[in-house]
Protein backbone atom coordinates (compact mmCIF):
# COMPACT_ATOMS: atom_id res chain seq x y z
CA UNK A 1 0.00 0.00 0.00
CA UNK A 2 1.29 3.42 -1.02
CA UNK A 3 -1.49 5.36 0.68
CA UNK A 4 -3.91 4.46 3.43
CA UNK A 5 -7.49 5.44 4.03
CA UNK A 6 -6.37 7.61 6.95
CA UNK A 7 -3.88 9.46 4.76
CA UNK A 8 -6.54 10.15 2.13
CA UNK A 9 -8.80 11.50 4.89
CA UNK A 10 -5.95 13.71 6.09
CA UNK A 11 -5.19 15.02 2.59
CA UNK A 12 -8.91 15.67 1.96
CA UNK A 13 -9.00 17.75 5.15
CA UNK A 14 -5.99 19.76 3.96
CA UNK A 15 -7.68 20.31 0.58
CA UNK A 16 -11.01 21.30 2.20
CA UNK A 17 -12.89 18.42 0.60
CA UNK A 18 -15.47 16.20 2.24
CA UNK A 19 -15.48 12.67 0.89
CA UNK A 20 -18.39 10.32 1.28
CA UNK A 21 -17.66 6.77 2.44
CA UNK A 22 -18.03 5.56 -1.16
CA UNK A 23 -15.69 8.28 -2.45
CA UNK A 24 -13.15 7.61 0.27
CA UNK A 25 -12.95 3.91 -0.54
CA UNK A 26 -12.83 4.48 -4.29
CA UNK A 27 -10.33 7.36 -4.14
CA UNK A 28 -8.03 5.44 -1.81
CA UNK A 29 -7.89 2.56 -4.29
CA UNK A 30 -7.35 4.86 -7.29
CA UNK A 31 -4.75 7.03 -5.55
CA UNK A 32 -2.91 3.93 -4.43
CA UNK A 33 -2.88 2.70 -8.00
CA UNK A 34 -1.57 6.05 -9.31
CA UNK A 35 1.09 6.38 -6.60
CA UNK A 36 2.25 2.82 -7.27
CA UNK A 37 2.71 3.83 -10.89
CA UNK A 38 4.58 7.08 -10.24
CA UNK A 39 6.98 5.17 -7.96
CA UNK A 40 8.54 4.29 -11.32
CA UNK A 41 10.54 7.51 -10.89
CA UNK A 42 12.55 5.82 -8.14
CA UNK A 43 14.29 3.80 -10.87
CA UNK A 44 16.19 6.97 -11.77
CA UNK A 45 19.16 8.33 -9.90
CA UNK A 46 18.53 12.08 -9.67
CA UNK A 47 21.29 12.89 -7.20
CA UNK A 48 22.50 16.41 -7.98
CA UNK A 49 19.94 17.06 -10.76
CA UNK A 50 18.57 20.61 -10.53
CA UNK A 51 14.75 20.56 -10.47
CA UNK A 52 12.89 22.34 -13.30
CA UNK A 53 9.93 24.44 -12.20
CA UNK A 54 9.49 26.35 -15.46
CA UNK A 55 10.76 25.00 -18.77
CA UNK A 56 11.55 28.49 -19.94
CA UNK A 57 12.73 30.29 -16.87
CA UNK A 58 12.66 34.05 -16.68
CA UNK A 59 14.24 35.75 -13.68
CA UNK A 60 13.02 39.09 -12.43
CA UNK A 61 10.31 39.85 -14.97
CA UNK A 62 10.40 43.59 -14.33
CA UNK A 63 8.14 46.10 -16.02
CA UNK A 64 7.36 49.75 -15.51
CA UNK A 65 5.19 50.37 -12.47
CA UNK A 66 2.46 52.24 -14.29
CA UNK A 67 -0.97 52.96 -12.92
CA UNK A 68 -3.55 51.42 -15.21
CA UNK A 69 -7.29 51.06 -15.00
CA UNK A 70 -8.51 48.34 -12.68
CA UNK A 71 -11.90 46.85 -11.88
CA UNK A 72 -14.42 49.02 -10.11
CA UNK A 73 -15.71 47.75 -6.78
CA UNK A 74 -19.05 47.06 -8.39
CA UNK A 75 -17.47 44.89 -11.09
CA UNK A 76 -15.26 43.10 -8.59
CA UNK A 77 -18.26 42.26 -6.40
CA UNK A 78 -20.59 41.37 -9.26
CA UNK A 79 -19.90 37.63 -9.15
CA UNK A 80 -20.07 37.35 -5.36
CA UNK A 81 -22.56 34.75 -4.14
CA UNK A 82 -23.30 37.10 -1.23
CA UNK A 83 -22.14 40.72 -1.09
CA UNK A 84 -23.39 43.89 0.56
CA UNK A 85 -22.22 46.45 -1.98
CA UNK A 86 -18.92 46.98 -0.15
CA UNK A 87 -17.58 43.52 0.61
CA UNK A 88 -18.18 39.81 0.21
CA UNK A 89 -20.27 38.41 3.04
CA UNK A 90 -19.28 35.06 4.57
CA UNK A 91 -20.46 33.09 7.61
CA UNK A 92 -19.29 34.54 10.91
CA UNK A 93 -15.74 33.52 11.81
CA UNK A 94 -15.51 34.61 15.47
Amino acid at each position, binding site marked *: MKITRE*EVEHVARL*AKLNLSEEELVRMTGQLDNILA*YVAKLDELDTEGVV*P*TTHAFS*INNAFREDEVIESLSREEALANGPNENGEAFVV*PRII
Partner: protein
Amino acid sequence: MNPFELTIGQARAELDGGSLSSRELTVSCLDRIKEVDSELHSFLLVTEKEALQQADEADRKIGSGDGDSLCGIPLSIKDLLCTKGVTTTCGSKILENFIPPYDATVIEKLKAQGAVILGKVAMDEFGMGSTSENCAFQVPENPWKKGYVAGGSSGGSASSVSAMECLGSLGSDTGGSIRQPASLCGVVGMKPTYGRVSRYGLVAFASSLDQVGPLTRNVTDCAMMMNGIAGYDRRDSTSIQRATPDYTASLTEGLQGLRVGIPREYFGEGLDPEVARVVENGIEILKQAGAETVDISLPHTEYGVAVYYLIAPAEASSNLARYDGVAYGYRDPNADSLIDMYRETRSHGLGDEVKRRILIGTYALSSGYYDAYYKKASQVRTLILNDFKKAYESCDVIISPVTPTPAWKRGVHADNPLALYLSDILTISANLAGIPGISVPGGFNSDGLPIGIQLQGSHFSEETLFRVAYNLELATGLGNRCPDIG
Protein backbone atom coordinates in the same frame (compact mmCIF):
# COMPACT_ATOMS: atom_id res chain seq x y z
CA MET B 1 -20.49 25.64 -51.32
CA ASN B 2 -21.80 26.96 -48.00
CA PRO B 3 -19.84 29.82 -46.45
CA PHE B 4 -19.22 27.75 -43.28
CA GLU B 5 -17.19 25.29 -45.39
CA LEU B 6 -14.57 27.93 -46.21
CA THR B 7 -11.18 27.88 -44.57
CA ILE B 8 -10.06 31.06 -42.82
CA GLY B 9 -7.75 31.78 -45.77
CA GLN B 10 -10.55 31.34 -48.32
CA ALA B 11 -13.00 33.38 -46.26
CA ARG B 12 -10.41 36.14 -45.91
CA ALA B 13 -10.10 36.41 -49.70
CA GLU B 14 -13.89 36.47 -50.16
CA LEU B 15 -14.44 38.99 -47.37
CA ASP B 16 -11.75 41.28 -48.74
CA GLY B 17 -12.96 40.79 -52.31
CA GLY B 18 -16.49 41.74 -51.34
CA SER B 19 -18.14 38.52 -52.53
CA LEU B 20 -19.05 37.59 -48.94
CA SER B 21 -19.89 39.59 -45.83
CA SER B 22 -18.98 38.61 -42.31
CA ARG B 23 -22.67 38.67 -41.46
CA GLU B 24 -23.39 36.09 -44.18
CA LEU B 25 -20.50 33.96 -43.01
CA THR B 26 -21.53 34.25 -39.36
CA VAL B 27 -25.18 33.44 -40.11
CA SER B 28 -23.99 30.43 -42.10
CA CYS B 29 -22.01 29.16 -39.09
CA LEU B 30 -24.89 29.86 -36.69
CA ASP B 31 -27.24 27.91 -38.98
CA ARG B 32 -24.73 25.08 -39.11
CA ILE B 33 -24.57 25.04 -35.30
CA LYS B 34 -28.39 24.89 -35.15
CA GLU B 35 -28.34 22.05 -37.66
CA VAL B 36 -25.72 19.79 -36.10
CA ASP B 37 -25.00 20.78 -32.51
CA SER B 38 -27.99 19.05 -30.94
CA GLU B 39 -26.19 15.83 -31.98
CA LEU B 40 -22.60 16.98 -31.44
CA HIS B 41 -22.79 18.97 -28.21
CA SER B 42 -19.76 21.11 -28.97
CA PHE B 43 -21.22 24.39 -27.74
CA LEU B 44 -21.98 25.14 -24.10
CA LEU B 45 -23.15 28.60 -25.10
CA VAL B 46 -23.87 30.23 -28.47
CA THR B 47 -23.60 34.02 -28.29
CA GLU B 48 -25.66 34.71 -31.39
CA LYS B 49 -26.56 38.33 -30.67
CA GLU B 50 -23.00 39.38 -29.84
CA ALA B 51 -21.65 37.42 -32.80
CA LEU B 52 -23.92 39.22 -35.24
CA GLN B 53 -22.95 42.60 -33.75
CA GLN B 54 -19.27 41.68 -34.09
CA ALA B 55 -19.91 40.55 -37.68
CA ASP B 56 -21.56 43.87 -38.60
CA GLU B 57 -18.71 45.76 -36.97
CA ALA B 58 -16.24 43.59 -38.92
CA ASP B 59 -18.05 44.34 -42.17
CA ARG B 60 -17.70 48.06 -41.46
CA LYS B 61 -13.97 47.62 -40.78
CA ILE B 62 -13.43 45.59 -43.93
CA GLY B 63 -15.43 48.12 -45.91
CA SER B 64 -13.19 50.92 -44.75
CA GLY B 65 -10.10 48.89 -45.61
CA ASP B 66 -8.69 48.30 -42.13
CA GLY B 67 -9.67 44.70 -41.54
CA ASP B 68 -6.91 42.53 -40.04
CA SER B 69 -6.44 38.96 -41.19
CA LEU B 70 -8.94 37.52 -38.67
CA CYS B 71 -11.46 40.33 -39.16
CA GLY B 72 -14.94 38.93 -39.65
CA ILE B 73 -13.86 35.30 -39.10
CA PRO B 74 -16.25 33.28 -36.85
CA LEU B 75 -14.47 31.29 -34.13
CA SER B 76 -15.36 29.16 -31.12
CA ILE B 77 -13.61 29.57 -27.76
CA LYS B 78 -12.80 26.89 -25.20
CA ASP B 79 -14.78 27.73 -22.10
CA LEU B 80 -11.76 28.41 -19.91
CA LEU B 81 -10.78 31.64 -21.60
CA CYS B 82 -12.37 34.60 -19.86
CA THR B 83 -14.83 36.50 -22.04
CA LYS B 84 -16.06 39.78 -20.60
CA GLY B 85 -19.77 39.64 -19.82
CA VAL B 86 -20.10 36.10 -21.18
CA THR B 87 -20.33 33.07 -18.87
CA THR B 88 -17.06 31.14 -18.56
CA THR B 89 -17.63 27.81 -16.82
CA CYS B 90 -14.42 25.81 -17.36
CA GLY B 91 -16.80 22.88 -17.74
CA SER B 92 -17.34 23.01 -13.97
CA LYS B 93 -20.43 23.30 -11.83
CA ILE B 94 -18.45 25.52 -9.47
CA LEU B 95 -18.18 28.20 -12.21
CA GLU B 96 -21.59 27.56 -13.78
CA ASN B 97 -22.65 31.20 -13.29
CA PHE B 98 -19.28 32.93 -13.48
CA ILE B 99 -19.35 36.00 -15.71
CA PRO B 100 -15.81 37.39 -16.06
CA PRO B 101 -15.49 41.16 -15.72
CA TYR B 102 -12.59 41.17 -18.19
CA ASP B 103 -11.33 39.51 -21.37
CA ALA B 104 -8.37 37.15 -21.53
CA THR B 105 -5.53 38.78 -23.46
CA VAL B 106 -6.03 36.42 -26.40
CA ILE B 107 -9.74 37.31 -26.51
CA GLU B 108 -8.90 41.00 -26.32
CA LYS B 109 -6.54 40.50 -29.26
CA LEU B 110 -9.12 38.61 -31.32
CA LYS B 111 -11.73 41.28 -30.66
CA ALA B 112 -9.32 44.08 -31.55
CA GLN B 113 -8.74 42.36 -34.86
CA GLY B 114 -12.46 42.10 -35.51
CA ALA B 115 -12.85 38.33 -35.12
CA VAL B 116 -16.36 37.05 -34.46
CA ILE B 117 -16.90 34.92 -31.36
CA LEU B 118 -19.70 32.40 -31.90
CA GLY B 119 -19.70 31.00 -28.39
CA LYS B 120 -18.00 28.86 -25.78
CA VAL B 121 -17.25 25.19 -26.31
CA ALA B 122 -17.22 22.12 -24.07
CA MET B 123 -14.15 20.78 -22.32
CA ASP B 124 -13.08 18.52 -19.47
CA GLU B 125 -13.63 20.30 -16.17
CA PHE B 126 -10.70 22.72 -15.70
CA GLY B 127 -8.91 20.96 -18.56
CA MET B 128 -8.50 17.77 -16.55
CA GLY B 129 -9.14 14.86 -18.85
CA SER B 130 -8.41 13.37 -22.25
CA THR B 131 -11.93 12.81 -23.59
CA SER B 132 -14.06 15.82 -22.50
CA GLU B 133 -16.19 13.29 -20.61
CA ASN B 134 -15.33 15.20 -17.44
CA CYS B 135 -17.37 18.18 -18.59
CA ALA B 136 -20.09 18.86 -15.97
CA PHE B 137 -22.66 19.85 -18.59
CA GLN B 138 -22.34 17.85 -21.81
CA VAL B 139 -19.90 15.65 -23.69
CA PRO B 140 -18.98 16.54 -27.28
CA GLU B 141 -19.20 13.76 -29.86
CA ASN B 142 -16.50 12.85 -32.29
CA PRO B 143 -17.95 14.16 -35.58
CA TRP B 144 -16.34 11.23 -37.44
CA LYS B 145 -18.11 8.51 -35.49
CA LYS B 146 -21.03 8.63 -33.12
CA GLY B 147 -20.37 7.31 -29.65
CA TYR B 148 -16.64 7.98 -29.91
CA VAL B 149 -14.80 10.61 -27.89
CA ALA B 150 -13.71 13.90 -29.43
CA GLY B 151 -10.66 13.85 -27.18
CA GLY B 152 -9.78 16.37 -24.54
CA SER B 153 -9.55 18.52 -22.84
CA SER B 154 -10.25 20.87 -25.80
CA GLY B 155 -12.83 18.40 -27.17
CA GLY B 156 -15.46 21.02 -28.00
CA SER B 157 -12.89 23.09 -29.87
CA ALA B 158 -11.87 20.10 -32.00
CA SER B 159 -15.42 18.86 -32.65
CA SER B 160 -16.70 22.34 -33.55
CA VAL B 161 -13.84 22.92 -36.02
CA SER B 162 -14.06 19.42 -37.49
CA ALA B 163 -17.84 19.61 -37.97
CA MET B 164 -17.49 23.06 -39.58
CA GLU B 165 -19.55 24.86 -36.94
CA CYS B 166 -16.84 27.52 -36.93
CA LEU B 167 -13.72 28.29 -38.96
CA GLY B 168 -11.30 27.93 -36.08
CA SER B 169 -11.11 27.70 -32.31
CA LEU B 170 -8.91 28.62 -29.38
CA GLY B 171 -8.04 25.81 -27.02
CA SER B 172 -5.44 25.22 -24.34
CA ASP B 173 -2.87 22.47 -23.93
CA THR B 174 -1.45 21.38 -20.57
CA GLY B 175 -0.48 17.81 -21.45
CA GLY B 176 -1.78 17.41 -25.00
CA SER B 177 -5.20 19.04 -24.72
CA ILE B 178 -4.98 20.77 -28.12
CA ARG B 179 -2.95 18.23 -30.10
CA GLN B 180 -4.79 15.10 -28.92
CA PRO B 181 -8.37 16.20 -29.74
CA ALA B 182 -7.09 17.72 -33.00
CA SER B 183 -5.67 14.31 -33.90
CA LEU B 184 -8.81 12.43 -32.84
CA CYS B 185 -11.09 14.80 -34.82
CA GLY B 186 -8.93 15.21 -37.92
CA VAL B 187 -8.02 18.89 -37.59
CA VAL B 188 -4.82 20.91 -37.09
CA GLY B 189 -3.88 21.96 -33.55
CA MET B 190 -0.84 23.80 -32.25
CA LYS B 191 0.55 24.04 -28.75
CA PRO B 192 2.97 26.98 -28.92
CA THR B 193 6.21 27.38 -26.99
CA TYR B 194 5.58 28.12 -23.32
CA GLY B 195 5.50 31.91 -23.01
CA ARG B 196 4.77 32.57 -26.70
CA VAL B 197 1.07 33.26 -26.05
CA SER B 198 -0.26 35.11 -23.02
CA ARG B 199 -1.99 33.07 -20.32
CA TYR B 200 -3.67 36.11 -18.79
CA GLY B 201 -7.36 35.28 -18.46
CA LEU B 202 -6.81 31.59 -19.13
CA VAL B 203 -8.26 29.95 -16.04
CA ALA B 204 -5.24 28.24 -14.50
CA PHE B 205 -4.88 24.46 -14.23
CA ALA B 206 -1.10 23.86 -14.10
CA SER B 207 0.59 27.21 -14.60
CA SER B 208 4.02 25.95 -15.64
CA LEU B 209 2.47 23.75 -18.36
CA ASP B 210 -0.65 25.58 -19.64
CA GLN B 211 -0.49 27.21 -23.06
CA VAL B 212 -3.20 28.68 -25.31
CA GLY B 213 -3.24 27.71 -28.98
CA PRO B 214 -5.37 27.41 -32.14
CA LEU B 215 -7.31 24.53 -33.72
CA THR B 216 -8.16 24.93 -37.39
CA ARG B 217 -9.09 23.02 -40.54
CA ASN B 218 -5.77 23.50 -42.26
CA VAL B 219 -2.19 24.55 -41.55
CA THR B 220 -2.39 27.99 -43.16
CA ASP B 221 -5.36 28.87 -40.95
CA CYS B 222 -3.45 27.70 -37.88
CA ALA B 223 -0.56 30.00 -38.79
CA MET B 224 -3.00 32.88 -39.35
CA MET B 225 -4.52 32.36 -35.92
CA MET B 226 -1.09 32.17 -34.30
CA ASN B 227 -0.31 35.53 -35.88
CA GLY B 228 -3.39 36.85 -34.15
CA ILE B 229 -2.64 35.63 -30.63
CA ALA B 230 1.15 35.39 -30.16
CA GLY B 231 3.23 37.97 -28.39
CA TYR B 232 4.44 39.37 -25.09
CA ASP B 233 1.91 40.51 -22.52
CA ARG B 234 2.84 42.65 -19.53
CA ARG B 235 0.05 40.98 -17.57
CA ASP B 236 1.62 37.51 -17.88
CA SER B 237 5.02 37.57 -16.22
CA THR B 238 5.94 34.26 -17.87
CA SER B 239 5.25 35.54 -21.37
CA ILE B 240 8.39 36.15 -23.34
CA GLN B 241 9.62 39.40 -24.86
CA ARG B 242 10.55 38.30 -28.31
CA ALA B 243 9.52 39.47 -31.76
CA THR B 244 6.67 37.47 -33.32
CA PRO B 245 7.30 36.38 -36.91
CA ASP B 246 4.61 36.20 -39.59
CA TYR B 247 3.86 32.49 -39.30
CA THR B 248 2.31 32.34 -42.77
CA ALA B 249 5.40 33.76 -44.48
CA SER B 250 7.55 30.64 -44.70
CA LEU B 251 4.94 27.91 -45.19
CA THR B 252 5.78 27.29 -48.81
CA GLU B 253 9.53 27.20 -48.38
CA GLY B 254 10.72 23.68 -49.12
CA LEU B 255 12.20 21.09 -46.80
CA GLN B 256 15.57 20.71 -48.50
CA GLY B 257 18.19 19.95 -45.86
CA LEU B 258 15.68 19.69 -43.02
CA ARG B 259 16.65 17.04 -40.46
CA VAL B 260 13.67 15.05 -39.18
CA GLY B 261 14.27 13.13 -35.96
CA ILE B 262 12.51 9.82 -35.40
CA PRO B 263 12.40 9.04 -31.68
CA ARG B 264 12.46 5.29 -31.21
CA GLU B 265 10.69 5.58 -27.82
CA TYR B 266 7.56 6.96 -29.53
CA PHE B 267 7.12 3.86 -31.69
CA GLY B 268 7.17 1.25 -28.95
CA GLU B 269 4.79 -1.22 -27.42
CA GLY B 270 1.10 -0.28 -27.42
CA LEU B 271 1.23 1.73 -30.63
CA ASP B 272 -1.71 0.87 -32.88
CA PRO B 273 -0.32 -0.52 -36.19
CA GLU B 274 -2.63 1.72 -38.24
CA VAL B 275 -1.32 4.77 -36.38
CA ALA B 276 2.25 3.61 -36.99
CA ARG B 277 1.51 3.21 -40.70
CA VAL B 278 0.14 6.76 -40.98
CA VAL B 279 3.23 8.23 -39.32
CA GLU B 280 5.56 6.11 -41.47
CA ASN B 281 3.75 7.44 -44.52
CA GLY B 282 4.33 10.96 -43.18
CA ILE B 283 8.04 10.25 -42.84
CA GLU B 284 8.13 9.09 -46.48
CA ILE B 285 6.38 12.30 -47.58
CA LEU B 286 8.99 14.42 -45.84
CA LYS B 287 11.84 12.40 -47.33
CA GLN B 288 10.42 12.86 -50.80
CA ALA B 289 10.14 16.59 -50.13
CA GLY B 290 13.89 16.68 -49.54
CA ALA B 291 14.19 16.17 -45.80
CA GLU B 292 16.63 13.71 -44.29
CA THR B 293 15.78 11.48 -41.36
CA VAL B 294 17.80 10.93 -38.21
CA ASP B 295 17.23 8.22 -35.63
CA ILE B 296 17.13 9.87 -32.22
CA SER B 297 16.48 8.84 -28.65
CA LEU B 298 14.44 10.54 -25.94
CA PRO B 299 15.33 8.03 -23.23
CA HIS B 300 13.20 9.49 -20.43
CA THR B 301 9.94 9.44 -22.41
CA GLU B 302 8.61 6.54 -20.38
CA TYR B 303 8.79 8.64 -17.20
CA GLY B 304 6.76 11.53 -18.65
CA VAL B 305 3.36 10.36 -17.46
CA ALA B 306 4.61 9.83 -13.90
CA VAL B 307 6.25 13.27 -13.84
CA TYR B 308 3.19 14.94 -15.30
CA TYR B 309 0.70 13.31 -12.95
CA LEU B 310 2.64 14.65 -9.98
CA ILE B 311 3.52 18.15 -11.23
CA ALA B 312 0.19 19.00 -12.90
CA PRO B 313 -1.93 17.92 -9.89
CA ALA B 314 0.49 19.67 -7.49
CA GLU B 315 0.06 22.94 -9.36
CA ALA B 316 -3.68 22.32 -9.73
CA SER B 317 -4.14 21.71 -6.00
CA SER B 318 -2.67 25.15 -5.39
CA ASN B 319 -4.44 26.94 -8.27
CA LEU B 320 -7.84 25.47 -7.44
CA ALA B 321 -7.63 26.50 -3.79
CA ARG B 322 -9.27 29.73 -4.97
CA TYR B 323 -12.63 28.00 -5.42
CA ASP B 324 -13.87 28.62 -1.91
CA GLY B 325 -17.31 30.10 -2.56
CA VAL B 326 -16.31 33.60 -1.37
CA ALA B 327 -15.80 35.95 -4.31
CA TYR B 328 -17.31 34.15 -7.29
CA GLY B 329 -18.74 30.87 -8.43
CA TYR B 330 -20.93 28.40 -6.60
CA ARG B 331 -21.41 28.65 -2.84
CA ASP B 332 -23.10 25.91 -0.88
CA PRO B 333 -26.12 27.56 0.72
CA ASN B 334 -26.40 25.32 3.78
CA ALA B 335 -23.09 25.71 5.58
CA ASP B 336 -23.15 27.80 8.75
CA SER B 337 -19.43 28.13 9.44
CA LEU B 338 -16.70 29.40 7.15
CA ILE B 339 -14.76 26.12 7.07
CA ASP B 340 -17.93 24.17 6.35
CA MET B 341 -18.75 26.62 3.58
CA TYR B 342 -15.36 25.97 1.96
CA ARG B 343 -15.73 22.21 2.29
CA GLU B 344 -19.34 21.94 1.18
CA THR B 345 -18.82 24.35 -1.71
CA ARG B 346 -15.81 22.45 -3.03
CA SER B 347 -17.28 19.01 -2.40
CA HIS B 348 -20.49 19.80 -4.30
CA GLY B 349 -19.03 22.12 -6.91
CA LEU B 350 -16.04 20.09 -8.12
CA GLY B 351 -16.21 16.88 -10.13
CA ASP B 352 -14.63 13.52 -9.53
CA GLU B 353 -11.47 13.89 -11.64
CA VAL B 354 -10.79 17.36 -10.27
CA LYS B 355 -11.08 16.08 -6.69
CA ARG B 356 -8.79 13.16 -7.53
CA ARG B 357 -6.11 15.48 -8.89
CA ILE B 358 -6.43 17.90 -5.99
CA LEU B 359 -5.93 14.97 -3.61
CA ILE B 360 -2.87 13.66 -5.51
CA GLY B 361 -1.39 17.14 -5.71
CA THR B 362 -2.03 17.96 -2.08
CA TYR B 363 -0.47 14.65 -1.08
CA ALA B 364 2.59 15.20 -3.31
CA LEU B 365 3.16 18.62 -1.74
CA SER B 366 2.37 17.64 1.83
CA SER B 367 4.85 17.53 4.66
CA GLY B 368 7.09 14.47 4.48
CA TYR B 369 6.27 13.64 0.86
CA TYR B 370 7.47 16.74 -0.98
CA ASP B 371 10.99 15.43 -1.69
CA ALA B 372 9.83 11.97 -2.69
CA TYR B 373 7.19 13.16 -5.11
CA TYR B 374 7.19 16.81 -6.21
CA LYS B 375 10.93 17.39 -6.05
CA LYS B 376 11.73 14.04 -7.62
CA ALA B 377 9.28 14.72 -10.47
CA SER B 378 10.78 18.19 -11.02
CA GLN B 379 14.24 16.62 -11.26
CA VAL B 380 13.09 14.07 -13.82
CA ARG B 381 11.47 16.96 -15.68
CA THR B 382 15.01 18.35 -16.08
CA LEU B 383 16.13 15.02 -17.57
CA ILE B 384 13.24 15.13 -20.07
CA LEU B 385 14.12 18.70 -21.03
CA ASN B 386 17.76 17.67 -21.48
CA ASP B 387 16.68 14.77 -23.74
CA PHE B 388 15.07 17.28 -26.10
CA LYS B 389 18.04 19.68 -25.97
CA LYS B 390 20.34 16.86 -26.96
CA ALA B 391 17.99 15.60 -29.69
CA TYR B 392 17.78 19.04 -31.30
CA GLU B 393 21.54 19.05 -31.74
CA SER B 394 21.06 16.45 -34.47
CA CYS B 395 17.60 17.28 -35.85
CA ASP B 396 15.33 20.26 -36.53
CA VAL B 397 11.98 18.65 -35.92
CA ILE B 398 10.76 15.43 -34.30
CA ILE B 399 8.02 13.40 -35.96
CA SER B 400 5.83 10.96 -34.07
CA PRO B 401 2.27 9.85 -33.45
CA VAL B 402 0.08 12.14 -31.31
CA THR B 403 -1.72 9.35 -29.51
CA PRO B 404 -1.07 5.61 -29.41
CA THR B 405 -4.55 4.90 -30.87
CA PRO B 406 -7.31 6.70 -32.80
CA ALA B 407 -10.46 7.83 -30.93
CA TRP B 408 -12.09 5.28 -28.66
CA LYS B 409 -15.63 4.67 -27.45
CA ARG B 410 -17.07 6.77 -24.69
CA GLY B 411 -16.97 5.32 -21.20
CA VAL B 412 -14.10 2.93 -21.81
CA HIS B 413 -11.86 4.24 -19.03
CA ALA B 414 -14.61 5.24 -16.60
CA ASP B 415 -13.27 3.16 -13.69
CA ASN B 416 -9.58 3.28 -14.42
CA PRO B 417 -8.17 6.82 -14.46
CA LEU B 418 -4.57 5.58 -14.70
CA ALA B 419 -5.24 3.75 -17.99
CA LEU B 420 -6.49 7.02 -19.47
CA TYR B 421 -3.50 8.95 -18.10
CA LEU B 422 -1.17 6.54 -19.92
CA SER B 423 -2.71 7.46 -23.28
CA ASP B 424 -1.14 10.92 -22.88
CA ILE B 425 2.40 9.58 -23.06
CA LEU B 426 3.26 11.02 -26.50
CA THR B 427 2.08 14.59 -25.88
CA ILE B 428 3.03 15.23 -22.25
CA SER B 429 6.77 15.69 -22.69
CA ALA B 430 6.35 18.82 -24.86
CA ASN B 431 4.56 20.57 -22.00
CA LEU B 432 7.15 19.47 -19.45
CA ALA B 433 9.90 20.82 -21.75
CA GLY B 434 7.94 23.93 -22.84
CA ILE B 435 8.55 23.18 -26.52
CA PRO B 436 6.02 23.70 -29.32
CA GLY B 437 4.13 20.85 -30.97
CA ILE B 438 1.56 20.56 -33.73
CA SER B 439 -0.86 17.84 -34.72
CA VAL B 440 -1.69 17.63 -38.41
CA PRO B 441 -4.06 15.11 -40.03
CA GLY B 442 -2.14 12.17 -41.51
CA GLY B 443 -4.78 9.63 -42.50
CA PHE B 444 -7.60 7.40 -41.31
CA ASN B 445 -7.90 3.95 -39.84
CA SER B 446 -10.06 1.20 -41.34
CA ASP B 447 -13.05 2.44 -39.30
CA GLY B 448 -12.80 5.90 -40.82
CA LEU B 449 -11.38 7.52 -37.70
CA PRO B 450 -8.79 10.27 -38.22
CA ILE B 451 -5.14 9.82 -37.22
CA GLY B 452 -2.85 12.79 -36.65
CA ILE B 453 0.90 13.21 -36.96
CA GLN B 454 2.79 15.14 -34.30
CA LEU B 455 5.72 17.44 -35.00
CA GLN B 456 7.72 18.85 -32.10
CA GLY B 457 10.46 21.46 -32.34
CA SER B 458 12.85 23.35 -30.11
CA HIS B 459 11.71 26.48 -28.26
CA PHE B 460 10.31 29.12 -30.66
CA SER B 461 10.50 26.88 -33.75
CA GLU B 462 6.78 27.28 -34.60
CA GLU B 463 7.65 28.51 -38.10
CA THR B 464 9.52 25.28 -38.87
CA LEU B 465 6.65 23.19 -37.50
CA PHE B 466 4.14 25.05 -39.67
CA ARG B 467 6.34 24.61 -42.74
CA VAL B 468 6.76 20.87 -42.21
CA ALA B 469 3.04 20.45 -41.41
CA TYR B 470 2.18 22.40 -44.55
CA ASN B 471 4.23 19.99 -46.65
CA LEU B 472 2.50 17.01 -45.05
CA GLU B 473 -0.90 18.52 -45.70
CA LEU B 474 0.00 19.27 -49.30
CA ALA B 475 0.89 15.62 -49.90
CA THR B 476 -1.98 14.00 -47.97
CA GLY B 477 -4.60 16.43 -49.23
CA LEU B 478 -6.27 16.26 -45.83
CA GLY B 479 -6.79 19.97 -45.20
CA ASN B 480 -10.37 21.14 -44.59
CA ARG B 481 -11.99 17.71 -44.58
CA CYS B 482 -15.42 17.36 -43.04
CA PRO B 483 -17.07 14.18 -41.81
CA ASP B 484 -20.41 13.25 -43.32
CA ILE B 485 -22.85 14.74 -40.83
CA GLY B 486 -25.93 16.93 -40.89
